[in-house]
């Protein structure tokens, strides 16, 4: 039994998922590559979004990949941390905004 669920070396093997379903694997990686091309958003902006999402879904592989990608693109640590706070604000806000539901319920039952 492995002692940990995650091994950093597995990130390099991401492409291997196609081995067990070539068609869907190929479609996914084509889509993935297309998503990150320069478009209405720059590749740099997309990298920062990916970094924020990586932290939101708490994917160690993605955090590893998009921290490195950001450094390569010249993204500063200040920009990275601001992107994370956007993720944190949305994530925290998502909990707190449900407070309205709680308040509605309290007001209805005990107002």
């Amino acid at each position, binding site marked *: 039994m492995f002692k940990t669920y995650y091994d950093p070396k597995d990130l*390099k093997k991401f492409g291997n998922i196609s081995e067990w379903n070539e068609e869907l694997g190929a479609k996914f990686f084509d889509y993935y590559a297309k998503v990150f091309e320069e478009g209405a958003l720059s*590749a*740099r902006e997309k990298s920062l979004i990916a970094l924020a999402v990586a932290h939101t879904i708490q994917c160690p592989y993605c955090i590893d990949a998009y921290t490195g990608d950001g*450094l390569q*693109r010249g993204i*500063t640590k200040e920009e990275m941390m601001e992107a994370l706070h956007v993720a944190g604000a949305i994530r925290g806000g998502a909990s707190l905004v449900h407070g309205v539901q709680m308040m509605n319920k309290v007001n209805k039952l005990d107002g």
Partner: protein
Amino acid sequence: MTKLKTQSLHKRESALAQSKRQLEILSNGIFQNGELPKFKDKIAETNQFPLKAKKLEILQINVGYMCNQVCEHCHVDAGPDRQEIMTKETMKQCLEVIKNTGAHTLDLTGGAPEMNPNFRWFVEEASKAGVQDFIVRSNLTIIKANKKYYDLPEFFKKHNVHVVSSMPHWTKGKTDKQRGDGVFDKSIQALQDLNAIGYGMPDSSLRLDLVYNPSGAFLPSDQVSMEKDFKKALMEDFGIHFHNLFAITNLPISRFLDYLIASENYEDYMYQLVDAYNPAAVANVMCTNTLSVSWDGYLYDCDFNQMLELPVNSKVKHISDYNEELLEGRNIVISQHCYGCTAGAGSSCQGTVA
């Protein structure tokens, strides 16, 4: 954050100051146990071994290792404490070659080449040879280091020198971390001085290019995107113009190798380089069209081989015996550091190659 060292590896008597030790590291460990392929075997996969020198296009002359800066990643191990300086006699030997070479580019580098006491004389004489592109690799801060250097922009202009300068980032924090406290502010002032007399301005023939190399253990991103980001930031923040950005990969030698080992990034970095190996870049690596001359006149396939003390594989070893025909077709001397020039879009002193 580690504090930037203020002395060269040589002055500190570090084991890594010795090229032999660097070459041992690059040949042992993950390259000896078969985890990663040796560069020779990798290029042999696509029938590109041995690499052969083509017609000479770029003559790069290192006029000395003395520098006013002690950058964290310097592959030359340059600094104020380095005493290796090209003599006027060796410069005269170089001038004979410059007058007769078929190379279209003359590229002066260092250290800070301007610190060589005969630098101005050499530039004046070399500029008479009418080489198509005459590059001086200036670290920018030298222009602001002492009043005797303040007129360098005018001097460069007078001799139509193409200025190529290092700039690891458009922010002060990342630049000073790699190149030393205060480097960013002085570099900005120097760039503004160069712009003021026409260097780097749109449509100006006075060429000003910047060199970007990553500030840590990672590879450079796409050169075109980086150039766009640099131009936008330097224009918005400081009103600075420049022509092109060359993205250069840090090669795992000298102080960058020291940094990789000290930060426990060496193996991961070598994996990155090998993973990003691009056979298309091999065809255009700079060692195949460049010759590097050291401060004492010896010949090397590139500036990196010069620092590793790997001389050209030719009967002609010294600038005083220079013979372009004999040097053409020679086998290029390689080791694992060469992966730095073949990763991704490739890397050379003129930026990407693939």
